[in-house]
């Protein structure tokens, strides 16, 4: 395993979140609790080439994702943006970049930076999302393939009886 990936695995470990039972709202809750700061995640209609936006305000962080995308892609986008928070990436200075306008509920009109091409930060955020998803996928794959848990409840006791895995 190369160093950046190992570092990202350490960061994910440090979150001490049970990724086996991952779901996005629960993960956001855990991060809010850990950072002692509100994170508002909201679906929005964004332009064609913009999948999500992270806006940092005084009292909270706002994450907007394009709600017209596939749910799997939406989750990826939110994870990617949460990675910027977790990794303490500095917010992009609003005055120095082309802007787009977003109406933030109860906050009025804010200006947010369009995504810029900071390769290191983007790569790190992608790596974070990938590490989280790898752990989730591995856990679910284990559940589906190795544990052989039947999805038919009435048939499950017989399948479990024939299973060679440890008792559950």
């Amino acid at each position, binding site marked *: 395993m190369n160093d950046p990936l190992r570092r990202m695995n350490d960061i994910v470990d440090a979150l001490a979140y049970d990724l086996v039972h991952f779901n996005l709202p629960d993960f956001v809750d855990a991060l809010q609790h850990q950072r002692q700061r509100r994170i508002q995640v909201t679906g929005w209609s964004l332009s*064609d*080439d913009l*999948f999500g936006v992270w806006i940092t305000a005084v009292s909270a962080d706002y994450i907007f994702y394009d709600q017209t*995308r*596939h*749910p*799997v*892609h939406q989750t*990826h986008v939110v994870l990617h943006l949460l990675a910027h928070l977790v990794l303490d990436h500095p917010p992009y200075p609003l005055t120095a970049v082309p802007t787009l306008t977003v109406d933030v509920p109860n906050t009025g009109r804010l200006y947010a930076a369009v995504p810029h091409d900071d390769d290191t930060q983007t790569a790190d955020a992608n790596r974070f999302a*990938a590490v989280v*998803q*790898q752990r989730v*996928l*591995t856990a679910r*794959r284990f559940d*589906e*393939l*190795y*544990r*052989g*848990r*039947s*999805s*038919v409840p*009435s*048939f499950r*006791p*017989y*399948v*479990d*009886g*024939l*299973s*060679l*895995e*440890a*008792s559950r």
Partner: protein
Amino acid sequence: MTTAVAMFTGLRLLLWLTFAVGLGRALHRHRLADPAARTIWGLFALWVVTLTLSDNPLTMASPVTIAFQSGGLMLTLYGYYHLLKPLEPGQPDNRVLDFLLPLALVLLVIVLLRPSFQTLPAAQQQYLIVVVRDGTLLVYTLAVFIPSTRRLWREETAPPLKFKQGSALICFYAYLIISGGSLLLGTITIDGVLLAPLFGLKLLVAMIALTLALMPYRWLVVFFQGHRLLTYTRLRRLERRFAQAADRPLAARPAAVELLNADVLELGIYQTVIAIFEHHPLAAHHPRSTGLVCQLEAIIADGTPYPMLVKQLAAVRL
């Protein structure tokens, strides 16, 4: 014929090995404390013993062997009938099926013990036993085994278990052919050649299917890894097409050797799916990718969960 006999012997050995290893593990893990586990292992044991009683699959066995084999098979499937029965809520309680098979077994014993049976030629003795066995099991196969297994196969979403239910279904269809064939065996020949070898081959199909159905899940993972590799290859081709249309570089992915690791492969599939989504808006403006974009947009509109999404994307026509 020698190859088929060797294969049959090999399958029997594999089945015994599977059974012995599995039972050892189940005992070690105290799994047999559970009544459902005892039922399923009891059926497995009966099935293994029944298959061991079989002679050469390409010829008809002696009447005594057929009688024992038939009794074992009938008991195994009667046990399986009782296993499936409570899994079919809402179905009317069929008292005929509760008693038909025990009555058939009693009838078989009476037939076998009659002095007149001993005076019959061996071929007729075999035929009589087969008529009682298959005439009875045909009813259960049509009324219970095929409909119930087909329902379980449809409802199952865990891949190895769906595979196992599919194997069991093939097994019952093969048995249906064998049963029908066996009943006609006494009279039907083609150009004077008895059809027994054909039905023996179908028995082999049934044996393979049921052995797969009973095989531990971990051993099946190897087959699914091959299928996932194929899925990944198809997704990569789709990603390449979208990257070209979007005029963006194709992202590097793990080397082929690394993909043999199941975790790396799953991550590669996920990254490829996301890359396809991210190339999509730019590719949408490329006139030559209209067909692909339409297919992708239909998938996005579906909003299916991840496992189904992967299947849908891998099935996109390039």
